[in-house]
């Protein structure tokens, strides 16, 4: 099964602006969703440099960039991308 990659930016800006709290993402996952997700910390994704991307902290869920990320925003995106039950 291909897992959904949740990449939490741990560049200093993102970490300070809330990324440090997003590292607790595993805690908000139910066991079924958790099966489909792999969580990783990422070096600066380079998104904070330009205001066009929005505000830090940033999280990438597969190819989708989430700006001003919160645990719930990330969870919603993961659920969007989860395959329909077979």
């Amino acid at each position, binding site marked *: 099964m291909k897992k959904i990659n949740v990449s939490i930016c741990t560049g*200093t*800006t993102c*970490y*300070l*602006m809330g990324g*440090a*709290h997003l*590292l607790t993402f595993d805690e908000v996952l139910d066991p079924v969703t958790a099966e489909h997700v792999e969580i990783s910390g990422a*070096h*600066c994704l380079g998104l904070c440099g330009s205001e066009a991307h929005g505000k830090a902290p940033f999280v990438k869920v597969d190819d989708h960039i989430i700006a001003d990320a919160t645990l719930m925003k990330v969870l919603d995106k993961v659920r969007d991308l989860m395959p329909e039950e077979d």
Partner: protein
Amino acid sequence: MHDNKANRLRKEILIRTARAFFTEEPNDTLNRIPLQMRPKGGEASRCCIYKDRAVLKYRCMAALGFGVESETDELKPVSDYYEEALAREKPVEPLLTVIDVACSACVTTRYRATDACRGCLARSCESVCPKDAIEFYKGQARLNPEKCVNCGLCMKACPYHAIIRIPIPCEEACPVGAITKDENTGREVIDHEKCIYCGKCLRECPFAAITDLSQMVDVLNATRTGKAVAMLAPSIAGQLPGTLPQLFTALKQLGFSDVVEVAEGADKTALHEGAEWAEKIAEGERFMTTSCCPAYIESVDKHLPEMAPFVSDTPTPMAYTAADVREKNPAAITVFIGPCLAKRREAARNPDVDYVLTFEELGAMLVGAAIDVLECEETPITATAHREGRGFAASGGVTEAVKVVAPGNAALQPIQVDGIDWKTMVQMRTWATKSCPGNFVEVMSCAGGCLAGPGTISAPRVAKKQLNDLQEKSPSLQG
């Protein structure tokens, strides 16, 4: 510290202020912060962008170390405050202050009947109310604020849970009743005679209306002298990305001439405190409390004089560390970096400590200087901080350390105050005046210890894990 929009806003101000310092035109950059954060045509979080901008200006002032009350001319631009901040030789008197225009003046009546009221036949609310404050309007209960005394009996009596209690978050959080409403404006005011600088009101206010006065610009200025020495509190673990040796490099890039760990001072505190405890108990004292938490020390000074004889005389980890830095380098500008606001009070009384920064402020400085900790090389750490000293960062850590070093530790009966609130204040008074169930009392103002302090960046669980990892790699004082 919580992660919510109010807190992110506070940090954004710090970042923008620090970033301005590193630009060619700091004055202009600073003056534009309110405009950039609330641009024309953008969304407002209060009534309009103009009010938002006015509040943001006060936030910038606080980031430069100026309270609302220091404003004499509303036209004075942020850049003028900046110039003054650069020119001052001593840090401002530490204070928690309310940005009055940001305070939403939460309602005073704490109980309210909601639409869930069915206007039932029983009307238990009406019968239990001792003040006859329940009135009925269009078949539903209402509380008359003129009569209501906030006893809460109606809330307990209602079978529909139709009566709710609306707390005032800052007042609720304050363990010592130091924050109350101004009767005329309804806005909150801090009584500095009572305030213990624990920072709980600042953390809990949903409008981010409470602020402390930052020394960040003073420190940024000091880093240009080549004499500034950073003293990192044991609770640094997990507060910034990367490893501790990477952070050392980041701090040097920022301009600190040297970086030391306060965990080394904590080792000394542990050794001294263990010996002091054994001595005092042998002399017949009932118990001894720790002395490293400055919000607790403020509490004793202002609210628990009965406790004063039981407080340990051992210097704090910050005091040991700063004295050591000064001895080796008398010209050093010493900067304590930690999770704590009350440390600013302790520093104001200790000539060895020049400035105090929070981890949030340090993070903002790194971001402002465009230093990414994860990209830094590792600076080898030559000094040895022990497992016990590092442990001071979490509740139970001081107790652990004293257990390890105290002679005859079999007789140690430790108890903990894990978080100062109004209940533990009452409890401590009883221990001092009547009897205490232990003979060694560890007091931490923040539940969880320093790693849950008001100036932290990380989630306490993440920080605790990193602290444990670091402790495991460190030698023990036991040898």
